């Protein structure tokens, strides 16, 4: 699955790092590092992290968008 965080919006509240520590970590007191391509099995934790973000900086790609991406016409 794919995740993107708007780090201009992120304020380092770190709710995500508590709820999905395999995908979100802090570097220092407020610098967010995250895995933009975590395993699909982490989806529930990541959805909870995105919902809990006080500034709503986390966007999660919907499964439909991922499926559509796989079927994009190339060439």
């Amino acid at each position, binding site marked *: 699955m*794919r*995740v*993107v965080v*708007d*780090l*201009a919006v*992120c*304020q*380092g509240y770190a709710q995500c790092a508590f709820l999905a520590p395999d995908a979100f*970590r802090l*570097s*220092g*007191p*407020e*610098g*967010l*590092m*995250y*895995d*933009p*391509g*975590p395993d699909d099995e982490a989806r529930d934790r990541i959805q909870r992290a995105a919902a809990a973000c006080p500034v709503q900086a986390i*966007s*999660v*790609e919907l499964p439909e*968008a*991922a499926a*559509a*991406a796989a079927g*994009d*016409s*190339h*060439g």
Partner: protein
Amino acid sequence: MANTGGAERIVIVGASLAGLRAAEALRQHGFSGTLTIIGEEDAPPYDRPPLSKQVLTGWIPAGHAELARLGPLDGVRWQLGTPAAGLDRDAKEVVLADGSRVPYDKVLIATGVRNRPWPQADEAALDGVCGVRTQADAARLAGLLDAGPRRVVVIGAGFTGSEIASACRHRGIDVTVVERGEAPLAAALGGVVGDIAARLHRDNGVDLRCDVTVTGLHGSGGRLAGAALSDGSEVPAEVAVIALGAVRNTEWLAGSGLAAGPLGVSADAGCRAIDVGGLVTDDVFVAGDVARFAHALFGYQYLALEHWENAVVGARVAAHNMICPTARRRPHACVPTFWSVQFDVNIKSAGVPALAEEIIMTHGSPEDASFAAAYGDADGRIVAAVTFNHGRYLDYYRRLIEQAAPLPDPVGEGLPGKPEPARFPHPAGSYHGPSVIVTGHSPTEMTAVAVPAGRSAR
């Protein structure tokens, strides 16, 4: 009828952050015509900020940086793997490097920037010499770092170079950073903040050499062995990372009649491209790092911004303006914002530091690299702010910048209480450039040197 603004065929040149977000916005706004995205690389759009941070520390593989798709992309035609080689505005066609042509009613230029190459091609070809711009670059450097080199030399102490040095120290690898200017980040944030960044490097064990240039890279059996510096010293190193800033990908537009050159592709405040005569086009739009656009908040000076946020917001404004009724067009006028994480410090900035004369520390403790500071122009108005591990304060300053408010007084205890010169170096004096480049008021200005406000080089 679907919202098309008279366009049936839209072509986006550049398959990175700006290109992807523009495509999503076009479909979200109801554009149902033919939408083609042209990309030089084979890879689908990926995000660059993780490449110099979590990829280099070894946490995630470079392949994880593929960008999440945040909107509908129904029926988008992806033409990946062949770069655009020309724009034929008479025929209204994008010409690809293989000679094929893609017709458009409206086109978005989002070709971004590439790394400024090391000037000696034979030295750049040595095993162990690399840069970080693409996913492949980052995968290669991560592999070199995995092998546990005895020392890495980073050439250029801008944001990317500093992040690379930070990743090396995170792994416990010895690193030498060579910077031609007086301090890391000084071109982007001035010498006062540069001094704080220099301490940050040294406190984290970086061998930082400023006011020095690399005069040569030498190898043995085709492998990098070390770097020779202008002060006569030698740095033995198995890996050299070239972090000399960026070059705008505008060469393909030669002959198009657009005002495109080393400073970028000129555009009006609504992302419409400007031609060499200074006229605004109505079918060619520009977004992302390659754009040089008139900014409503800064006296309509043309700015070039190598910022993630600028690519996202600019792409959405361009997409909107491509297909909306003329009277509904919007300006791309948000305050530039930027962020970097290095040495466990979250650095954020808002506004245009390069317009500043002065800086005042307003919160926290500069000694501990934990502070907020505001930048003022010659008239005493706030034009920018920077925070080190004080990101929550930035929004306050962003609003002051939007209002062109007076430079604020310090709030924290124990701060000097007075502004001091911000000490921006001449842009030619650093390996790294400013990340907000102020390029003057002329829509067709195309000289290669960006001149900071108040320090004319001409």
